């Protein structure tokens, strides 16, 4: 919720470009004043270093050691170079896990949450106010639930004797055991249900900023609804789309609780995404070093996605 508000109030980049030269051109600022202005930031920087950079550096370092939770390496871990990464490349579970992570992220976030969020937001701008607020509160309801509660709700819905199969039974159909037969489908739908509200809120805020006179002008020129969407609305909210994509991608890459509660990565490894694999290796099999190597790979994947999105968000040269 908070994040959504922040994004919503960020001015579109075109405005920012116009303001910046004015601000810096006001009067020259002495170096001392610049340094003094940094002082209030110091506590924040310290906290960020300890709690954000610290664990990342530790994890990166740990991935080059044979640190373990038990056994002789628990008390005396040693530097083993790239052995963990070499082992990872030979691990038959790793390619599967990588594919499942990408599938989970693309299917549940990049495509479903994004498209559905935009779709519902567009519908809500046209629907009558009461209906819109009703739909809004239903969708946002899933977002308000703590992740562990949402995960149990989804478990209860998809499990063998769960709500879904009871509904199917009422209309005379026998549903499969979703969590066993279609584990990825179940967790993708669960994440879609839980995460759509975020995209919805972001897009709602962005659509409110689309100047009505431009759409009206397009309408007068005879552009159809679809054309107005493709040629007017989407170009205007383009930066919001990439920001939203980046946020939901990073959120979804690291989803753990939802999958762990619903399937625990099973059956077999059929829903073991990288966070689950890292957890299993680090804590179930006590290989902290190997687990952190997987976490580092996850970090790199997130970084690649971020770079792609940041590049896409740059204003096009015209």
């Amino acid at each position, binding site marked *: 919720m908070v994040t959504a508000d922040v994004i919503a109030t960020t001015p579109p980049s075109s405005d920012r470009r116009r303001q910046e030269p004015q601000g810096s051109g006001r009067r020259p600022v002495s170096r001392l004043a610049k340094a003094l202005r940094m*002082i*209030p*930031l*110091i*506590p*924040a920087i*310290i*906290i960020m270093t300890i709690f954000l950079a610290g664990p990342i550096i530790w994890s990166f370092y740990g991935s080059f050691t044979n640190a*373990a*939770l*038990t*056994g*002789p*390496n*628990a*008390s005396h871990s040693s530097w083993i170079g790239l052995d963990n990464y070499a082992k990872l490349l*030979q*691990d038959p579970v790793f390619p599967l896990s990588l594919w499942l992570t990408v599938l989970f992220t693309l299917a549940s976030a990049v495509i479903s949450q994004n498209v559905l969020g935009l779709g519902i937001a567009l519908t809500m701008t046209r629907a009558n106010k009461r209906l819109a607020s009703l739909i809004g509160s239903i969708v946002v309801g899933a977002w308000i639930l703590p992740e562990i509660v949402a995960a149990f709700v989804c478990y209860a819905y998809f499990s*063998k004797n769960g709500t879904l199969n009871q509904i199917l039974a009422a209309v005379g159909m026998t549903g499969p*055991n979703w969590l*066993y*037969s279609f584990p990825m489908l179940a967790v993708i739908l669960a994440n879609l249900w839980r995460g759509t509200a975020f995209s919805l809120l972001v897009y709602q805020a962005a659509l409110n900023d689309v100047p009505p006179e431009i759409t009206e002008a397009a309408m007068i020129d005879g552009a159809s609804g679809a054309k107005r969407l493709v040629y007017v609305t989407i170009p205007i909210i383009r930066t919001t789309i990439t920001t939203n994509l980046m946020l939901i991608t990073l959120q979804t890459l690291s989803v753990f609780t939802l999958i762990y509660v619903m399937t*625990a990565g*099973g*059956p*077999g490894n059929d829903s073991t995404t990288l966070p689950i694999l890292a957890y299993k290796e680090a*804590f*179930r*099999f*006590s290989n902290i070093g190997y687990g952190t190597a997987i976490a580092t790979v996850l970090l790199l994947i997130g970084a690649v996605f971020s770079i792609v999105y940041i590049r896409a968000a740059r204003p096009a040269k015209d």
Partner: protein
Amino acid sequence: MKNRAAIAISVVAIGALIGLTACSSSPGTSGDKTIKVTYIKTDAFTALDTLFTKVKTAFETAHPGVTVQLQPVSATDDDYKTKLALSQRSAETAPDVFYEDTTNVRSDADAGYLLKLDSYLAKWNDWSQFTDAAKQAGQGDDGKIYAVSLGTDTRAIWYSKPVLQAAGIAVPWQPKTWQDVLNAAQKIKAAEPGVVPFNMYAGTGTGEGSNMQGFYELLYGTALGSDALYDSASGKWVVGSQGFVDSLTFLKTLYDQQLALTPAEALDPNIWKKVFGELFPKGKLGGTVEGSYTPSFWQKGGSFEWAGYTTDMGATAFPTQTGQAPGGVSMSGGWTLAVGAKSANSQLAFDFMTMALSRDNALAYDNANSQIAVRKDVAADPSYVAANPFVKAVTDLVAVTHFRPATSVYNQISVEVQKASEAVITGKMSPHEAAAAYDVAVTGIATADKVVKK
């Protein structure tokens, strides 16, 4: 506006910093001593909590100024072990006395988490009451003692007499070979539709339980016997054995012929609750392989109280493959108590532990939790044998029981065994393919010079 926001943020940040430093300062250490005790407590396992609560009162009375801080953990065995290992990494969080699985004793001793107890045990008179097997359960790789056994367990076939009789099978039932088990299951299937003939856990869902109460009863009953999984003489893991393929084939037959639960049910981590709470009491299951602690679920105060179990249920040894000696197979595990190597009050912690392990306390615990006694004086007590009608049957299985090779890679290899059985019962691989995949995985985990082809 901007400046004000910046000031507000820094005030909050500085406040947070002050708060953090305040938190990290250690609580005042006066002359009082504290013993931290960590163990599992769940709705299905309260016996240890009862024991420690009782011992805490007695210990605090006997040692004025000492506080015993009980830290029960409500978690599955696996999660408990993870939490315990994490807490042991720092002296600040490490418990003084804790509940420790026998399979972890060796690797945790290697890790330096466990206190070497030999010099303490030398001065404890009761130590001579422990059986040799129990003493070995607490040994580290160096032959020193690091933990003291609380009780052990064995595995047996638990069968429903009414179900077997309805299918024309005479009770008491004692299958001699694997084929006898299959024959009985087929008879039950033919005679009683709607009844699950014979359950053997398999797959990753039930975790370690699917090996202990399933695959290992098969594997350790094949030609290689106690060396079927791990060759103890050479210290190497066994790959490529016919017994492994045969054991998987048995499970395949059981599941393919629908003599067991459906694979989807078998992979549900909570299936054991259905077995104890629903299938047996309702007469919907012929038999299953389960631990000697089975009666603890049904007796008064258990999770699935069922008075009829004393007359309806029977317990017998799981047979060897072809009936070869020793004629039965059982697996044993069990838990111990240990003292933390980082404990500041190790003598007090040891004293607390021995008080919990005294004759009277061990007797009460073993009876409440249906454990097999490891103290000779407890085993000889009339109330131990009388605790439930199956004590003698399951205690006799100690003669044919096996222990897991508790090396530091055991947990990973155990999962590979579970994956193999899962692949077979779900039809994803043939027994030969699953065994071959297991061999590759084990060679990867244990390294090539630690495996031997048999």
